[in-house]
């Protein structure tokens, strides 16, 4: 059964006037995409592609020139439904004279979290993002990673079902990136639908179910990350040890495999239709199998194709 559509964007157009008296510039050219319930959706694109503009339209911060954007069935220009969504902006700035607990209490009040529940909820969320120890510290003393985590905390303090994250790993060191990535995965595993804007492909590849790639205000690709190739066209990298060079050469010739090797380890890239035959043959001749890794379409390749114009709205 098809999952519910949580975010639906259709024909979204946005024009900006760069300055008074100047001609309008179109930054979104009628984009369409959908995000299903429970997905961790990556919205990626090069700088200036229209990612943040799209995010801001979804958040009601800017108004679309044409087209429609709906979240949970509501027009994004409405306000009341926002109690079901959370938003963590890029490089968030908060009132630095407040403590971590005070800022979350402020956002909880904005979301009408009942007074009786507020203090407890603030404690829960601070613990959830790993900032329980910093609850009473002023935000001006927080590191960038801590601010990013408090940004996620304020986005979920009212327990929304959809969370929007704008460049959540931007500007963080590898440890900070991993911490935020883990939080994002944890959020998703708790059943929240996540829409994430980013240009860090490695993070998207690690955590996202589906992506849309936006280039120059147009969706160049949207689809799943795993299984990007249809059955029959998939390939596997099979690494053997103790596979004789003669056998490797035979395999290379017979199965049109791509051979690479170092020391006594040999890796063959082989089409899926020949996999079982090759593995059985190798085992019969005394070789050992170290690993079998499916080869998908790498996100980087997909992204570069999208940017260079080879892809145009190929939804798979």
């Amino acid at each position: 059964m098809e999952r519910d559509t949580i975010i639906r964007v259709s024909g979204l157009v946005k024009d900006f006037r760069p300055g008074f008296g100047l001609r309008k510039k179109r930054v979104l050219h009628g984009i369409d995409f959908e995000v299903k319930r429970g997905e961790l959706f990556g919205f990626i694109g090069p700088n200036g592609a229209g990612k943040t503009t799209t995010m801001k339209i979804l958040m009601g911060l800017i108004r679309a020139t044409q087209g429609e954007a709906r979240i949970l069935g509501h027009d994004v220009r409405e306000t009341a439904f926002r109690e079901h969504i959370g938003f963590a902006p890029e490089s968030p700035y908060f009132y630095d004279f407040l403590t971590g607990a005070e800022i979350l209490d402020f956002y909880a009040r904005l979301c009408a979290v009942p007074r009786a529940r507020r203090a407890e909820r603030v404690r829960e969320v601070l613990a959830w993002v790993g900032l329980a120890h910093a609850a009473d510290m002023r935000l001006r003393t927080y590191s960038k990673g801590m601010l990013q985590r408090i940004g996620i905390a304020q986005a979920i303090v009212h327990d929304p079902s959809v969370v929007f994250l704008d460049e959540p790993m931007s500007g963080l060191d590898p440890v900070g990136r991993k911490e935020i990535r883990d939080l994002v995965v944890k959020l998703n595993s708790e059943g929240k639908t996540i829409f994430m804007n980013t240009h860090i492909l490695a993070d998207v590849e690690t955590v996202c179910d589906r992506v849309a790639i936006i280039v120059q205000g147009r969706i160049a690709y949207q689809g799943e990350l795993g299984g990007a190739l249809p059955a029959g066209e998939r390939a596997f990298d099979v690494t053997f040890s103790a596979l004789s060079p003669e056998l490797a050469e035979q395999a290379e010739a017979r199965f049109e495999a791509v051979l690479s090797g170092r020391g006594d380890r040999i890796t063959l890239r082989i089409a899926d239709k020949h996999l079982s035959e090759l593995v059985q043959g190798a085992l019969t001749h005394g070789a050992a199998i170290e690993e079998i890794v499916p080869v998908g379409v790498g996100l980087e390749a997909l992204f570069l194709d999208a940017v260079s114009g080879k892809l145009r709205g190929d939804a798979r």
Partner: protein
Amino acid sequence: MRWLGAVLAIAGNTWRDAIRSKVLYALLFFALLLIATSATLATLSYVERERILQDVSLGAIRFFGAAIAIFVGVGLVHREVDRRTIFTILSKPVDRSAFIAGKYVGLVATLWALLAVMAGCFVAASLLAGAPLASGHAIALMLIAVELAVVVAFATLFSSFSTPFLAGCYSLGIYLVGHLTRDLYAIGKTSASPAAREFTLWVKRLLPDLEAFNRTIEAVHGLPIPPAEVGWSLAMGVAWIVGFLLVAVMTFERRDFR
């Protein structure tokens, strides 16, 4: 209820932010200094020392109160946009009208607290100098409070679409002309030019008459202040506040936060 809750949350935060402003404390310091030294200024005169003291003190309260209202008010909305704190607020179930109302209420509360401090200083200086205090002084101070609320309303309006510098210029202009509308209208009425008469009439109609909130002379000289006139000034003040804030909300509703 949700709208009101958001207004109060934003107002509380604005209060906390505003009371950290160094400009605010600098201006408050000079206001208190002028009130405190008005007793010394009064000794320079042989006659009506108490009245000079109270005149200078109430003038200082009005001037510095308006200065704080304009200085802090013009950056009220712009600072939130510039610091991008507005992104996290407006992405919550918060109407833009609640945001404007919350910012306004927070700053007015701050100004009224400062006004209470200045009024306390004024009362102390008057008592020390043996100057009489009557209900007229309370009415004068109350009308200053309403005038400050009007000044914050138009400063908020300009802050909702403009930079602090431009908003400051607009607000200062309205404040100065607002104190001259009666005089301009009176001059216009005596003018032979129909265009001048029409112009001054429209200035009077379109801009707030801030002199309606100035009862310093009556308070200082112990003259009666008719309750009907006080009521009219209050009603006019509320009408101007609502008018300015409605325009601010309409402007703010149309804004894109890029």
